[in-house]
């Protein structure tokens, strides 16, 4: 390289080079020899010091150009016409630890991805050869000016994200799943899309069975958000994932204190021993723990534990009492919980109560449990910690990468549209400005 070969290398461009994580980009390579096979490759060095990569095999046209948004990939971690394949098909590089999951912890800094183009159709050994060209791109969870505030007061723990502007804004209470801890990236992204978003920490990782979490913790969290001077008090919704969805449905149905304007429940079930504390959900599950299966890799499949729940009324949230629009998003290949079966039962119960007009159910084929913001890599199985870190195993979440990624992209659009419709005024409403 260097002075020896004076030919100009191909030019690789990824536009925009800085974007929010749910924005698309356009990857173009120019100045290649015509009809030449090349590999487009993406590489990310995670905060946990693991490497993730994706790649696609392309052929340049008569002008020597490859345009990822229009051309087809003929091999690699994705095939076909996939403008964003270099992101959603990422997986840990060969030789990595098992059961990895990619989740950004520090949302104030961007995710850096190096996109390169290699000569020929390469499938391995990317670090050993020099690419023809490479660029660095930034993927951000936070728009400029979005504020991140640690909240440790009035009995609530979590992180608050506030959009820029005078406000006030609609609000969202953001609740994660059974792994516990504080995962901020979805809230940061929702704030970047115009919602004051409060992600509530309701138990620390490993504390599942010991945490003494009562419903009034969530009511307090919701109240904190509603009373915040930057929040429009009657435009606060709840967004839940997995266990967080269960809590969401319970709050919407049973709480006499709070009235969410709308709810989004991703991969959730309505199994909840009425009147009991949250850990009752886990206790209920573990009564059925003999029903945990393992697959040929020894990954845990928890699905079956939830199947018996739908028959016993006292073990379900009385969803017929829900009075706000609700969007359920589920994957048909969810191996962690029978969320599609739950959704069907929820629909039955709500119909019986005359509330079916409030419910929108969206379910995606070959999609697993972890339905994340778009273009996030798919995790079919990852490491999971239970019982104060005494138990560690790999949990099977399900889903096949390509359909699961399509579901993430489609679901996010539907979720944002649902939230906008319910939490931002539609222009037909008479309003005084």
């Amino acid at each position, binding site marked *: *390289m*260097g*002075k020896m*070969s*004076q030919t*100009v*290398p191909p*030019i*690789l461009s990824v*536009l*925009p*080079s*800085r*974007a*929010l994580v749910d*924005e698309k980009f356009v990857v173009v390579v120019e*100045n290649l020899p015509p009809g030449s096979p090349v590999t487009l490759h993406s590489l990310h060095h995670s905060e946990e010091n693991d490497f993730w990569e994706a790649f696609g095999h392309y052929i340049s046209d008569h002008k020597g150009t490859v345009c990822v948004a229009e051309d087809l990939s003929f091999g690699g971690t994705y095939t076909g016409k996939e403008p964003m394949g270099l992101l959603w098909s990422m997986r840990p590089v060969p030789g990595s630890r098992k059961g990895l999951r990619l989740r950004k912890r520090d949302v104030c800094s961007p995710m*850096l991805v*190096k996109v*390169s183009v290699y000569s020929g159709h390469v499938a391995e050994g990317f670090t050993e050869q020099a*690419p*023809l*060209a*490479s*660029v*660095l791109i*930034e993927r951000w969870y936070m*728009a*400029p*000016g979005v*504020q991140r*505030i640690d*909240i440790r*007061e009035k009995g609530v723990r979590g992180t608050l994200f506030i959009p*820029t*502007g*005078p406000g*006030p*804004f*609609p609000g969202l209470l953001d609740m994660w799943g059974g792994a516990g801890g504080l995962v901020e990236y979805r809230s940061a992204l929702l704030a*970047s899309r*115009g919602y004051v978003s409060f992600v509530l920490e309701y138990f620390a990782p490993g504390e599942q069975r010991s945490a003494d979490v009562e419903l009034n913790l969530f009511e307090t969290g919701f109240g904190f958000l509603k*009373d915040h*001077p*930057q929040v*429009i*008090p*009657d*435009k606060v919704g709840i967004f839940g994932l997995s266990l967080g969805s269960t809590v969401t449905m319970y709050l919407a149905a049973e709480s006499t204190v709070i009235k969410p304007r709308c709810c989004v429940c991703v991969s959730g079930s309505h199994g909840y021993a009425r009147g009991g504390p949250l850990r009752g959900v886990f206790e209920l599950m573990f009564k059925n723990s003999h029903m945990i299966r393992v697959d040929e890799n020894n990954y845990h499949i928890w699905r079956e534990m939830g199947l018996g729940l739908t028959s016993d009324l006292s073990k379900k949230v009385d969803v017929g009492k829900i009075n706000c629009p609700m969007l359920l998003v589920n994957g048909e290949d969810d191996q962690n919980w029978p969320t599609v079966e739950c959704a069907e039962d929820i629909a039955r119960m709500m119909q019986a109560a005359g509330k079916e007009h409030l419910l929108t159910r969206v379910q995606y084929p070959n999609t697993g449990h972890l339905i994340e913001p778009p273009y996030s890599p798919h995790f079919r199985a990852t490491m999971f910690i239970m019982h104060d870190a005494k138990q560690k195993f790999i949990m099977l979440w399900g889903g096949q990468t390509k359909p699961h990624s399509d579901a993430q992209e489609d679901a996010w659009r539907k979720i944002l549209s649902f939230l*906008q419709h319910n*939490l*931002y*005024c*539609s*222009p037909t*409403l*008479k*309003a*005084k*400005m």
Partner: protein
Amino acid sequence: MVRAHISLTTIRQLIDMKMLPCISLHRNLACLHPAVGGVRWKSSYRQAPLLTAAPVRALIDEQISIKARFLPPCCPVTVCAQMHSEDGDLWEAFAHYNTNADGTVNLTSDQSVGGSYLGREPMGLFWGLQPAPGSREGLRLRKKNVETPYTVLLSLLEGHVSPSERQSTELAAIFTERCYMAPGVRRIEIRQDGVVGTLFLPPGPGPFPAMMDLWGMGGGLPEYRSSLFASRGYASLALAYIGHKELPGPQNTLNVGDSYFQAAFHLLQGHQQVCADRVGIIGLSFGAYLTLRLATQTGVKPSCLICINGPVGSVIKLPDVDGSSGLFDSEKKYWRYDDQGHASFREVSLPANIAPENKVKLEHLPCPLMYILGEDDLSTSSIENANLIEETLRAAGKSQLLTRLSYPGAGHLIEPPYAPNSRASMWSVKPEKLITLWGGHLAPHAAAQEDAWKKILDFMESHLRL
């Protein structure tokens, strides 16, 4: 609330409060009882308008798409941009729109009916930025530190107002970042072989085609064009030659000669990440003269040249080995003043005022040349010089090398797009304050910058890459 006599300091403080992330302020608000102040609306009919920009972080030469939604239909609104320069001055722009029947405003398609610009101007809020009322005189917006972005606050106000009036309700606001360097671009200070400059390299293994980047008699080391070239895939060396403390001799004189510029060109050409046979030169103003001078010397073989608003000759002689140097101020007899005492340097570069032996031998032009001129250039006689270049090349049978771009209404400072033009700015403060005229009217100059930049990049692509 009486707003009529809000002082400038208070306005600045209010803007500063909004501009800087006020984490502590909001924390305090969060702890207060809900009934505080007039901050809260309880009605569910309260509009929550949404202002978006995509992408919200972009390179300075990228267009962004600004939209407002969830507004009442057919209502007057003002979209406003505000930013602080690195020197702390406030720059503002605003435009008046009427919302569509669906309650939206889309700056990419809708028409401004008043303010800093009129008509359909997707980027008008950026190139229309002007110093806020009460600012110091003679300001020019130039990024010194290219590693950080400009943060521009875009806001949506009720009604057709002027932002300085501060009387309107703010409906929504967002921050956008305007960057001069793409991620992965490397900035390298060059202090080698006597050469003072900054090299920008694109990310990737290279090697890359390259540009040598020359500015005018204002001196210093402007990096913002080079950092953008590197963001577009070209290695680029911004070169200082006057008015820089690391150059020899007094700062107000030209103390470097041909050997300096040749050394810089060879340094760039010889860099291991540069394709030696694909190096071009770009120059603005006096830098354009230096570009032509360097290109017509032996031992230097650029692949292409871009000259913006520059003369073919100089009344200043470049110092040769003896060290004799020239002073720009000695040409004061050609300066013309307008009624405000602002100086136009235009006639200094009239071909008639330059002796033939001080003109570049254009017959020896070795490569394609793009000459860009603003027809309202008040600093250099660009039109006359362009004509001379054209005639000389025609006589030498080299017309095919010349591409001439002429922009009506544009001034001297044709720079990367979507930044505001200064029609005049401070030239010197000692021995007395002097403001010089650059020319150019805001809207046509902005159009010229946008078009010229595209053509510059295409020209570089054809001659340095393909």
